[in-house]
């Protein structure tokens, strides 16, 4: 039987990207600045979120979406303990959050009483890079103990970043981590990337990071005022 070629030319991630645009629209309508926070497990995502909340509240109201592969609420509970709204997403073993999961989670958050939304992605440096969520910025935490070669190994995630955080800088004296080598790798992938070296343990660098977040929230509010 004769076959026929049908042209398609459709991006394979298009369905996710469309839902992501809808999420962004919804966030914009509510004047919320949203961050997609990615990192490997143990890099300090939850610690940074808690530090950020403590520094910015009560001036800013922060909402959090916690992504985890297991049905636990450990992280969401910590955020709720700070008096901020949190939704836990259990991805059921999936290695990343996608735009549909965020769309469902947004339904459960009091969007009118939030200025800043932080989405804690699943701890993974590969899969989250492929799925846009509809946030305004993609932020990665690289932590010193992970090693200085990560930009060279996980190129996709570094290329899609708007901000890089280097956490656990208090450990630099004890760990063989060549900051120049690390930064050179980042520069190749993402020239001029905004970077905040900090420590969630000592608090060093937290003020610079939270000042940046605050400026982004205020910029958005004044644009839409």
């Amino acid at each position, binding site marked *: 039987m004769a*076959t*026929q070629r049908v042209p398609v030319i459709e*991006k*394979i991630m298009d369905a996710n990207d469309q839902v992501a645009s809808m999420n962004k629209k919804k966030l914009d309508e509510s004047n919320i600045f949203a961050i997609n926070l990615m990192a490997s497990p143990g890099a300090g995502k939850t610690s940074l979120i808690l530090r950020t909340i403590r520094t910015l509240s009560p001036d800013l109201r922060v909402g959090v979406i916690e992504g985890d592969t297991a049905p636990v609420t450990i992280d969401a509970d910590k955020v709720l303990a700070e008096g901020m709204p949190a939704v836990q997403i259990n991805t059921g073993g999936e290695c990343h959050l996608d735009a549909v999961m965020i769309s469902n989670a947004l339904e459960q958050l009091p969007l009118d009483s939030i200025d800043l939304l932080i989405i804690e992605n699943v701890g993974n440096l590969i899969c989250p890079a*492929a799925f846009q969520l509809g946030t305004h910025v993609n932020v990665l935490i690289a932590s010193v103990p992970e090693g200085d070669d990560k930009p060279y190994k996980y190129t996709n995630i570094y290329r899609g970043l708007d901000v890089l955080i280097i956490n656990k800088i208090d450990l630099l004296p004890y760990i063989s981590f060549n900051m120049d080598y690390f930064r050179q790798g980042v520069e190749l992938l993402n020239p001029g990337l905004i970077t905040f070296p900090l420590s969630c343990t000592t608090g060093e660098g937290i003020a610079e990071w939270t000042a940046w977040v605050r400026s982004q929230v205020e910029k958005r509010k004044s644009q839409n005022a």
Partner: protein
Amino acid sequence: MHELAVTESILSIAKRHAEQAKARRVTDIYIVMGNLSSIIDDSVQFYWDIISDGSICSGATLHFQRIPAQAVCLDCDHQYSLQERLSPCPACGSAKIKIVNGEEFYLDSIEIER
């Protein structure tokens, strides 16, 4: 790791276009993939055989066309191919580069029987 979600997306795009074209069956699917996309073709093929079963796309062969990665230097405009690792501009040594090819990931076309 996320190949299942990707394969489901390929299936849904292919089914939609097959139905629009009033196909009886899809025999081939042509996918274009840049060398920088972190997708493993073997895993996509593995999931494909399972999830396309019983659909209009059941038994269709997946073809992957790989696009080599290329970068252009933002300082001297030199264009060069990237091997496994991102490397600075071989002409002037600058680290300010931009990826121009290798990030593609789309369904190019399908082959159908009516």
